[in-house]
């Protein structure tokens, strides 16, 4: 089954899940609503897309999109050597979507990473804790409203006082 027919079949089967289908530099991108993501990915997996190459997220704050966050899944079909990108849109107010750890074990750590850096919550994930940052870290560093430059965050860290007077932070 070619990719085109598979996608049109999926669209027929889950019409309420699809927001849009786009193509850029030869890559098909399926834009989906987040609550239907598990169903569509299960269907894709049984259709041959057996390898979850990558799972990550994008903060659409200034880029624009259907919702604030997009969780993107890069799937690979070993048989036909085709790849497809699936994007699930998650709102800012309720950043939750179902975990795909039951389909691919590799999603375990990758979803933890997305949770750590974006604060997106994956429901029914076995152990959703921070993976890169310390457990008591506050904020989600890869969000666009988290500053790249500036001294605010650094000054918020507790300082080990060794008897040296702390300099006042620059205004």
């Amino acid at each position: 089954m070619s990719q085109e027919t598979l996608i049109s079949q999926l669209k027929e089967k889950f019409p309420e899940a699809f927001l849009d289908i786009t193509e850029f530099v030869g890559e098909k991108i399926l834009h989906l609503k987040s609550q239907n993501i598990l169903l569509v990915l299960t269907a894709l997996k049984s259709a041959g897309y057996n390898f979850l190459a990558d799972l990550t997220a994008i903060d659409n704050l200034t880029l624009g999109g259907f919702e604030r966050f997009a969780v993107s899944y890069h799937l690979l079909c070993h048989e036909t050597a085709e790849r497809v990108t699936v994007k699930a849109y998650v709102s800012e107010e309720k950043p939750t979507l179902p975990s795909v750890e039951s389909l691919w074990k590799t999603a375990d750590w990758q979803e933890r990473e997305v949770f750590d850096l974006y604060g997106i919550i994956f429901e029914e994930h076995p152990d959703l804790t921070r993976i890169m940052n310390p457990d008591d870290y506050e904020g989600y560093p890869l969000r666009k409203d988290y500053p790249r430059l500036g001294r605010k965050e650094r000054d918020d860290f507790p300082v080990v006082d060794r008897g040296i007077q702390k300099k006042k932070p620059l205004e």
Partner: protein
Amino acid sequence: MNRVTEQPIETDKMVLNFGPQHPSTHGTLRIIMELEGETVTKATPEIGFLHSGFEKLGEDLDFNQYITITDRMNYLSPLCNNVAYALAAEKLMGLKVSKRTEYIRVLMCELSRIADHLLNVGMLAVDLGAMTAFLYGFRLREDIYDLFEIATGTRLTTSYTLVGGLMRDIPDGYDKAVIKVLDDTDEVANEIETLLNKNRIWQDRTKDIGIISKEDAISYGISGPMARASGIDWDIRVNEPPYSSYEDFDYDVAIALNGDVFDRYLVRMEEVRQSIKICRQSLDKMPTGDVSLDPDLGFSLPPKDEVYNSIEGLIYHFEVTMPNRGMTPPVGEAYVPTESPNGELGYYIVSDGTRTPYRVRTRPPSLMNYSIFSKLIEGHMLSDAPAILGSLNVIAGELDR
């Protein structure tokens, strides 16, 4: 396995901290192991000690500046990272680089693969007590790093590629230096295999240790030599053309079926031999031509010679590098998978049409390869932990980014 006593000796459960500073972690990894006697019953890896916010940094640097950051990810084969990132950026912008650029990139990637695999096999050997194989591999790795230094100017932080080309062409007579090192590599590969392949201790320590089944390999997202050692016939160089002119070369893909530490070692050694073949072919067939795009297109930097000696070159240089000018990619996104020595190294670039990427994601093979560790070590002895860890080739810089 022969035990001294038939009756198991009952012991209390013991919790052991393996790392973050341990000679066989080769980086900062921490594993909390629960032991019963010497058998590991549960292992919880903890990562993130080297997390440096590379992906966040990518949103603030322009496309060419970020190449210096990719060096720091997999610091054993930085050229593969450079090439992977350049390929992703070129796919996003729809640029087609010259044939000579692609061939030089292939040559550099394969030399990196040889260096990476030899170091990995050597480290695995030295963790298991075989010092000689490590020394053979490490000495040759220095020779390969010398080759990198000749071409790029540095051993480790190469930053050799640019979007749309290379920083500079390889110097005259480079092929002679490469061929000498390749001849040495042939010998060293033979010597390492003579030392290890039929060594009783080596076989006892590596065979049937840390077996990854085919299904597990797919489920855990394992790629590269580790997946091929588990019988998955998948190599991005062969299966997903076009990929930087790899389709012009004649080589085989090494596959093993058992998926244990020994097979992963065998696959890596065979890949070294195949990489030698590719390197020789790329030198033989090296096309002539430029290694950078026409500066008029506004993507690639003009040669340094022109920048310093002519006003036009200087203007073109500023056109590309100034904050309010620079390259303007289309709005969109591209994911490019490449076959790095560790597995599928992918770069996912989202662009909003400005000179800095909107989002740069690295798909680090080490993260996926390491995530299966706790499953592999369960039920094995504590002394197998360095063997399994060594065969995964976890690079902490890439793991944590």
